């Protein structure tokens, strides 16, 4: 068949050169990712295992990929020491290297770009990779994403201070790098995941001085709670953190307040651990177009997977925390490892069938996670005295989000009181309000941390404003690059020479820009003007 003529101003024939290719790309070298790599090794296919850790200190300082709250210890500045600590913490990485797996550490995957309808110009699936010195593309046939978890943020007065950090971020620094700079910590949240991190940090020498829970009972495992209590932690239910006080170096104390009476308690501490919710880190898969759903047993919005860890994309699999966070899995890495192995088997053989008896499913959630997240936001954020910024990057308060106020840099005041933005509920009109619309109008979630610290709070506020349940609120979309990358880093990626040879700022149609006083009364495709470069307006 004759090749059709393709618009030379279009992407046709301009796919960038892809230097590196692999059969099976595995993103994330935690328990699930390493197990997947070892399962796939030695079978005659190319396996590449990529992990962004060790993350450069500068990146961690931007709260990427986790909310590190500037509590990185001195060792975090030494790339070699971090790498050594990581290899020591995950000895199976050595096995992976020995098994002939191409292991790339300190390398972030910032985008997965499927070949498919409406994006067919790249003729393979491609991943965008970046390390500290290069940015490049890698083609792959299958991808297993084992990108782990992140933490829900929660605003209160003073939460912008150094020392306020995600519980998973603290765990990452302590367990992977041995570089958590914290001595006395208050833990906010009491589900098993939070308590588990608290106990693990306690065994590493961090004093947990209090556990603060807005609900009327400690939510998680009683034995873990007892361990923390025995270690000196005060357990406060029906409480929130009202204020984190501090100095230039960060938090020095927190004030916890009862939700019922005026009672308050003060704790000297250098760190506040946000343990409200551990969330599946789904940004890479969601941005690539994987179907997601709010699944309370799997930690909220999560990539939908079948028993063989297949996602809705026929070449993509999810394993480990990004396929669901639940308490038993957090405490037993064997579950994540088995998910990784299943994902690898499915990737290797499309016809593989899961032995359902062996597939560990999440237990019923120990509490109503959707309600809990909304109640945390209501109690801590809306209940705050000083209107803390929910979105720290763009400086947006809860009230501004609920009112859908234009951002403060516009200094907008309605000329007529009739011009009312009508709040979150007014945006809905039909169907639940979409956080993406609220983001665009208020700028919340639109800053350099890419919404890591505020997106779940914004979703909860939208639910509150619209008077609907959190699971009804659509998931705000993620976008590549899912890690911030400098223009000059992205510019490092090679392009086809034909891209530069024919680059128009818009559609490259001469007829589009002919001034109206010169247009022909009739237009025909066969006699259109072609060949000259065109600028748009």
């Amino acid at each position: 068949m004759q090749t059709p003529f393709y618009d030379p101003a279009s992407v046709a024939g301009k796919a960038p050169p892809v230097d590196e290719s692999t059969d099976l790309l595995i993103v994330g070298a935690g328990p699930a990712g390493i197990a997947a790599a070892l399962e796939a090794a030695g079978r005659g296919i190319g396996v590449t295992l990529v992990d962004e850790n060790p993350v450069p200190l500068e990146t961690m300082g931007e709260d990427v990929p986790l909310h590190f709250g500037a509590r990185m210890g001195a060792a975090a500045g030494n790339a070699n020491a971090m790498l050594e600590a990581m290899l020591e913490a995950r000895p199976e990485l050595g096995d992976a290297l020995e098994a002939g797996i191409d292991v790339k550490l300190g390398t972030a995957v910032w985008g997965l770009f499927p070949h498919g309808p409406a994006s067919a110009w790249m003729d393979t699936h491609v991943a965008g990779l970046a390390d500290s010195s290069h940015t490049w593309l890698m083609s792959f046939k299958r991808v297993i994403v084992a990108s782990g978890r992140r933490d829900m943020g929660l605003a209160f007065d003073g939460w912008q201070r150094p020392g306020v950090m995600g519980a998973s971020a603290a765990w990452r620094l302590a367990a992977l790098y041995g570089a958590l700079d914290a001595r006395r910590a208050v833990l906010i949240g009491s589900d098993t995941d939070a308590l588990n991190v608290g106990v693990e940090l306690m065994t590493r020498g961090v004093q947990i001085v209090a556990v603060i829970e807005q609900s009327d009972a400690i939510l998680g495992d009683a034995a873990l709670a007892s361990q923390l209590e025995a270690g000196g932690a005060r357990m406060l239910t029906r409480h929130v953190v009202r204020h984190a006080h501090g100095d230039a170096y960060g938090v020095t104390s927190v004030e916890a307040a009862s939700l019922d009476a005026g009672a308050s308690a003060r704790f000297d501490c250098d760190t506040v651990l946000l343990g409200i919710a551990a969330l599946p880190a789904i940004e890479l898969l969601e941005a690539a177009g994987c179907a997601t759903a709010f699944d309370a047993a799997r930690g909220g919005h999560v990539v939908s997977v079948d028993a063989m860890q297949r996602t809705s994309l026929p070449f993509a699999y999810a394993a480990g925390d990004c396929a669901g966070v639940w308490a038993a899995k957090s405490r037993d890495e064997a579950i994540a490892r088995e998910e990784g192995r299943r994902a690898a088997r499915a990737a290797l053989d499309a016809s593989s069938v899961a032995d359902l008896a062996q597939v560990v499913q999440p237990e019923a959630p120990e509490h109503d996670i959707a309600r809990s997240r909304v109640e945390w936001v209501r109690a801590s954020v809306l209940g705050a005295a000083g209107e803390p910024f929910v979105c720290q990057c763009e400086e947006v308060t809860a009230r501004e989000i609920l009112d859908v106020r234009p951002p403060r840099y516009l200094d907008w005041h309605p000329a007529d009181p009739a011009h009312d933005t009508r709040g979150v509920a007014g945006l809905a009109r039909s169907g639940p309000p979409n956080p993406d619309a609220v983001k665009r109008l208020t700028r919340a979630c639109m800053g350099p941390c890419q919404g890591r610290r505020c997106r779940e709070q914004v979703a909860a506020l939208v639910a509150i404003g619209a008077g609907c349940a959190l699971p009804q609120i659509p998931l705000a979309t993620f976008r590549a690059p899912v890690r911030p990358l400098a223009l000059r880093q992205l510019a490092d990626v090679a392009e086809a020479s034909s891209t530069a040879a024919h680059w128009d700022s818009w559609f490259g149609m001469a007829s589009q820009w002919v001034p109206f006083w010169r247009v022909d009364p009739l237009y025909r495709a066969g006699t259109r003007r072609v060949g000259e470069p065109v600028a748009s307006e």
Partner: protein
Amino acid sequence: MNTLAAGNIKGASVVIVGGGVTGLSAGWWLAREGIDVLVLEAGMIGWGASGRNGGGCSHHHSPLFMEEQRLWPMMDELLGYPTEFCRERIRIALDEHQFRLYRRALENGAHHGLRSDVLDAKQVRELVPLAGDNVHAGYFYHFGGHANPHRTLQAYAWAMEDHGARILQHTPVTGFVTQGGRVSAVKTSSGDFACDHLVIAAGPHTGVLAAQLGIDVPLAAARAEMIVTEPLPQMPLGGVDGNGLYGRQTLRGNLAYGGGPHEWIGLDDVPKVRPHSTPLQCSIAARLAALLPKAAHAKVIRSWAGYIENTPDGRPVIDRPDAQGNVTVATLSSVGFGLSPASGHAIRDLVVDGRCAFADLSSLSLSRFAHLEPNWRELQGWLPLPLRAAAPELEAA
């Protein structure tokens, strides 16, 4: 679903199909005269091309240009909500070739009696602090400007609601009821809505919908991409582009730019496949780093893609064809945002008066396609690219 919301609405004097910037502007123009307006949007307002553009307001080639220029400085006041409109633009050429290309705006502006200055490299660097040593020359157009598409779109929506108009989202139109050569009602998944006049401004879907009424609006759809950086210190003038890019520094300080090749897609893919950005963002980033070298360190924090419709010649259609007595069709053909204050006004004129009082719309009529070849998409190469065969199985040893 919106049955509850839709349940109370039986119809409107004017039903507008499409909650993009063109439909919403038209709705606002009609509603502010007290006309009963209902906008039906298949998804979310502004989720198509209206929300994916550089925000430019400088279309000196268009018969709507002078109205565009007249209205933009007043839009915040007229709407009652902020649009972030800022006057004037600078375009930077990094070589002589670009310098010649960008001269057209100067010439077209001059045709309308509007001033532009030619800038040498030093002058460009003085006006654009993020520009670098690689500047060849530039233009300072003392007309046009830029605004924030999302904010403007919502401003139209809020303003038309202030005047009593209604918007139903998630309400795809499935067909029309005609009576005696006129459309009497619009069919949707939430029931029928009666109308005295119909406006179809449904972006890529305009052609398919109009075809049901015997009106041929030739259209194709493409995917295009943009990137946005973290905020940088505000330049004196945000409306700076060039080097094959369109875009602006926003009032927040972010650099939001696009450009480069587009991908033609099947019209069927528009509702089915979410528009994805691709590694083209690397090429856009490279050109932005060259346009504004002192911003090369700035972090890209988002990219996005959108679907955009085009007519065969890329020029808008704003027409009230004879096929039906009470139907106005409009597509701005990939250049709709900046012209929206004027396009809405023109649609208002066609709906209410049957003709546009302030501009000659003859170059935007459908009659120019009377002799268009049926295979125009093939002739122009506006074809979706073939999908590669299904991925081969991994060859496990």
